[in-house]
C-alpha cells in the first residue's frame, strides 16, 4: 500500500459499500507503522533496521456474527474484495451462532488525535543515535567478567484512520520512543544480568526523543556495571516468609500478570481459553471480591500522558477512558469492549479494544494499568521493615491460566534490616496467590516515586498479537510473602 498518505475517500467508500451489503455494523481501519530499531552490542552494530507496514483491516458484524479480513493492497478493487470477504466470513459464522453479538452504543466521533512530543525521533540523525549507543556500551565494557554489553533504541510512529458505518471518522498519530541497556557478566558457573533503566525493553514511552535523552543511559551504565559484578559474588536470599518491597520496575510485571490480564473481559468470557487461558475474576465477583487490601486502587487509564497504552480513541472508536479495576481493595471493573460490555450488561465499553496491526482484529487489551500511589515516602516504607528485601527489575515471570498462582524472579535484590538497606542479593524468586498477595499490601509510596513503564510484548490472541501496554506504580510493600532463590 502506498505509505505516504491515508486513502481516506477509498476507506469511506468501503463503509458505504458495506452498508449496501446490509451489515449490522462495520468498521474499516487503515494503519501504517514505522519502526526504527537499533541494537549495539560490544561496540558493534548488532542490528540496524527500519520497518514499515501499512494496510487495511475490515471488521463486519452481519446477522450478529463477526467477520474480519485484511489486505495490504490499497486499490479500490482489492479493498472491496476484502470487504466482501469479511461479509462472507461473517455470514459463515452466523450459520453456526445461536446468540447474536450485540454492541453497547458509542457516539460516532469525528476527531483527530496526536500524541504529544517535543523532538520527532525520526528526524534525529542516525549517527547521533548510534554514537550515543556506542558511548553507553563503552561504559558497560571493560572488566573481564563482562561477557555482553547491549544498548538499544526503538521508535514507532503509528498512523491510523478509523471509519465506521455508524459515521465515525477518527485519525490518530501515536509516537513512541524507547531505549535501554543490558549487561551480562560471568565468572565460573555464575552468570548475572542487569538492565537499565528497565528490563524487557520496558523504557518505552509515548513521547519523542526527549524521553531517550532524559534516560541518561551513560550514567545508568556505570551503575549496572557495578551491580552486575557485585551480583556475581552476592548470596541468594534466605528462603521463607518475609516482607518484600517491590520497586516500580518489578511492579510493572506484577500488575501486568496478576491484575491486567485477569480483568480482560474477553478472557473472562472464555474467548482466550485455547491460548492464554481464563480468569479467576468471573462476573459473580464483580463488586464483591476483596482483590487486595484497602491500600490497593488499580485503574486502567488510557489518558495518562506518556503511557504506551494511551490514545485518543480505541480501535472501535471509543474515546479513551479511565476505568477503576480495583477500588480500595474491592474488585470493581473490567477492561472491556463494546461486545463484551454488552454481554455483561454494562452500559458502556471500557474503551480497551486495540489491534497490533492492520491485519489483526482488535481484542480487549490493557491500556495503562496503574497502581495508584500512597502517601509514604520510600524511606518511610522502609522504616517499618525489621527484616525483608527490596526487589528490582523483572527477570522472569509465570502465572497460571486463571491468573492466581504467580512466580517472578528479579535481576537484583537488597536486604532490608531494621529499616536500612543491606547487602545485595542474587537470584531472588518470590511467589504467591493473587488476591492473598495483594491483600498483604501494607504500604505504597507517594506520587513523587511513582513511575510509568511500558511492556512492548504483551502476547494475546490467535494469531498471536503483541501489544504495547503501560503500567505505572509506586514502591509497594507486602508482608508475609514467600521468597526463595532461583539457583
Amino acid at each position, binding site marked *: 500500500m502506498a*505509505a505516504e498518505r491515508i486513502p481516506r475517500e477509498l476507506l469511506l467508500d468501503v463503509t458505504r459499500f458495506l452498508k449496501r451489503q446490509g451489515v449490522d455494523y462495520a468498521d474499516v481501519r487503515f494503519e501504517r507503522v514505522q519502526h526504527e*530499531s537499533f541494537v549495539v552490542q560490544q561496540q*558493534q552494530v548488532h*542490528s*540496524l*533496521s*527500519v*520497518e*514499515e*507496514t501499512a494496510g487495511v483491516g475490515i471488521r463486519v458484524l452481519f446477522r450478529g*456474527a*463477526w467477520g*474480519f479480513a*485484511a*489486505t*495490504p493492497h490499497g486499490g479500490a478493487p482489492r479493498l472491496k474484495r476484502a470487504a466482501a470477504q*469479511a461479509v462472507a*466470513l461473517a455470514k*459463515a*459464522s452466523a450459520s*453456526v*451462532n445461536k*446468540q447474536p453479538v450485540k454492541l453497547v452504543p458509542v457516539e460516532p466521533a469525528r476527531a483527530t488525535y496526536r500524541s504529544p512530543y517535543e523532538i520527532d525521533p525520526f528526524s534525529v540523525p542516525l549517527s547521533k543515535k*548510534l554514537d550515543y549507543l556506542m558511548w553507553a556500551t563503552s561504559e558497560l565494557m571493560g572488566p573481564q567478567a563482562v*561477557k*555482553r554489553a547491549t544498548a538499544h533504541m526503538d521508535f514507532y510512529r503509528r498512523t491510523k484512520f478509523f471509519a465506521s458505518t455508524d459515521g465515525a471518522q477518527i485519525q490518530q498519530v501515536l509516537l513512541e520512543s524507547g531505549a535501554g541497556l543490558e549487561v551480562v557478566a*560471568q565468572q565460573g*558457573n555464575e*552468570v548475572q544480568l542487569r538492565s537499565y533503566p528497565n528490563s524487557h525493553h520496558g523504557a518505552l514511552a509515548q513521547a519523542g526523543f526527549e524521553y531517550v535523552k532524559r534516560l541518561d543511559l551513560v550514567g545508568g551504565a556505570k551503575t549496572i556495571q557495578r551491580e552486575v559484578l557485585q551480583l556475581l559474588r552476592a548470596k541468594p536470599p534466605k528462603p521463607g516468609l518475609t516482607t518484600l518491597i517491590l520497586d516500580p520496575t518489578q511492579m510493572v510485571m506484577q500488575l501486568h500478570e496478576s491484575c491486567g490480564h485477569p480483568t480482560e473481559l474477553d478472557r473472562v*468470557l*472464555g*474467548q482466550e*481459553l*485455547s*491460548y492464554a*487461558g481464563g480468569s*479467576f*475474576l468471573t462476573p459473580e*465477583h464483580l463488586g464483591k471480591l476483596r482483590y487486595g487490601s484497602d491500600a490497593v486502587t488499580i485503574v486502567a487509564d488510557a489518558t495518562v500522558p506518556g503511557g504506551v497504552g494511551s490514545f485518543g480513541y480505541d480501535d472501535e472508536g471509543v474515546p479513551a477512558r479511565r476505568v477503576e479495576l480495583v477500588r480500595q481493595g474491592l474488585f470493581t471493573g473490567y477492561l472491556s469492549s463494546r461486545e463484551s460490555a454488552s454481554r455483561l450488561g454494562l452500559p458502556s465499553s471500557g474503551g480497551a479494544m486495540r489491534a497490533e496491526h492492520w*491485519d*489483526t*482484529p482488535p481484542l480487549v487489551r490493557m491500556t495503562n494499568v496503574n497502581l495508584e500511589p500512597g502517601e509514604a515516602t520510600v524511606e518511610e516504607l522502609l522504616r517499618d521493615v525489621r527484616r525483608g528485601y527490596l526487589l528490582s527489575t523483572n*527477570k*522472569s515471570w*509465570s*502465572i*497460571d*491460566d*486463571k491468573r492466581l*498462582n504467580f*512466580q517472578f524472579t528479579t535481576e537484583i535484590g537488597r536486604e532490608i534490616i531494621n529499616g536500612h538497606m543491606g547487602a545485595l542479593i542474587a*537470584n531472588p*524468586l518470590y*511467589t504467591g*496467590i493473587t488476591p492473598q498477595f495483594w491483600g498483604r499490601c501494607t504500604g505504597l509510596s507517594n506520587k513523587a516515586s511513582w513511575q510509568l513503564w511500558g511492556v512492548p510484548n504483551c502476547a494475546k490472541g*490467535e*494469531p*498471536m498479537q503483541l501489544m504495547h501496554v503501560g503500567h505505572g506504580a509506586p514502591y509497594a510493600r507486602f508482608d508475609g510473602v514467600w521468597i526463595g532463590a*532461583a*539457583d
Partner: protein
Amino acid sequence: MIGSTRLLEELTRLAARSKADGTSICAQGQGRHVLRFAYGTVHQVLFQEHITVTIKAVLGKRVGVASTDTFDRASLNRTLAAAVALARHSPNHPSLPPLPASHQLLTTEDHDAATAQAGPEAFLPSLKRLFHLCQGAGASLAGSCAVGEDELAVVNSAGVACYAASTLTGAKLVTMYRKLSGFSSRVERQVSRLNLEALLETSLGQCLHRQAPITLPLGTYEVILEPEAVAELLMWLGSIAFGAKSFHEKSSCISGRIGEQVMDKRITILDDGAHPDGLRMLFDFEGVPKRRVPLINRGTAAGLVYDTTYGHLYGQASTGHGLPPDDVEGPQPLHMFLEPGTASRDELIRGCERGVLIPRFHYVNGLLNPPEALMTGLTREGAWLIERGRRKAPVTTLRFTHSLLDALRHVVAISKERHRVADPMQESGCAVVPALHLARFKFTGRSEDA
C-alpha cells in the same frame, strides 16, 4: 500468495538493482483463515494475508536492514534504498562474514492445493456437530482452527535463490466439565487429515469424570509428561541452550560442556529441518540448506546450531539455522526431535508407582537461571495423580520449578509413539517428541481459589 516465479524474479531484480556490495533479501508470505469459538459461539473468523520483505544491504563491513510488507516495485525499491542508507551510516563490523553463496532450492512438496483453498467452511459443519456432542455430554467447548498457506523466498547477490511453499492447518480444543478441563491439538499439512471429532474425544476423555480434583502436597514426584508438555520444555531448552549465541555468551547450560554427559543416556535430541515428520523447512532465512544437527547424543552434549555470523566466529559452516536479518536472537533450532523409546504410553502409566500425568503445561518460563536450565511453569488441563499404574484422581493446578537438565538425567522410560507439536498459526517451529516418564520433578506451588 505470490508464487515462486514472480517472487524469485522480483527479489532477483531487486538484488541486481542494489548498489550495495552485497544484498540479501528474505520474503515471508502467509495467508490464514482463523476461527475461534467459545461456549457454542464463534467469536472470531478472520482472513489475513501478508508478506514481509526484509532486505540486508552490505557495504564493505557495514550492514543495514530494512523491511516492508508492501509488495510493489516502488515500496521494494524504497526499502532497498533505506537498507543501503542505513549501511552507509553504520560503523564497521570487523567480523562480518560473507553472504552465503549459490544455494538454489525450490520446493512445493508440502503445499496441498485443497488446503490452500480451504476456508472456515472446512471446519464449520464439524464444529456444529462438536457443539452438539458437547452439549449432549454436559460439557462446554472452546478453541480455535486455522488453515492457510505460507511461502518463503531468499535471494542474495552471491547466487542464493531459494523458494518454498507449504500449507498448514490445525486445531486446538479445550473442553470443560464441572471443575475439570481437557485439551487436545493437532497440526497437519493437509486439511483432509484433520479429524476434529477424534480431537474432541481426546479432550473429553481428560475431563468427563465425576471426581473432583484433589490437592497434592508439594514436593518431588515422578511425572509422565505427554508430548505437548515435553515439546514446550524442549523448545524452551532449544532457545536458551542450543544456539551458538547463548553458548558464546556462556548462558547456555552446555557452554563449555560439549562432549560431557549432561543427561540420561536414553536422551538423544537433534534438529532436523528436512525431516518429513516435522514441519519441513529445507533452508533457513539466510538461504542456507538446513543440516541435521545432533544436539544431545545419548545424553552427551553434542553440538550447536549456527548461522553464518556465529559459524564465522567459531570457524564452522552455518548449519542452516539463521533467523531473518532483523532478528537479534542468534541461530535457533526450530525443528527439534527427541528420539523415541520402546514403551507404549499406557506402559508408561502402568510403570508409574506414584506420580503425576501431565498432558501440557501453561506459561513455562526458562529465564530463571539459564545456565542451570531452571524452568518454572504450571499444569493445566487433564493432570491426574497416578498410583500403582492407574489414574487415581484429577489434581488441581501445580507449579513446578526444576532444572530441565536434572529432570532429563532421571529418565525412567520413553514412549515409542511420537507426536508433532506446533502452532498452526505459524509455519516455522515444531517439536517431534515422545512422552517421558521422569523419576523426579519438583512441584513448588499450587493454585488456590480466590
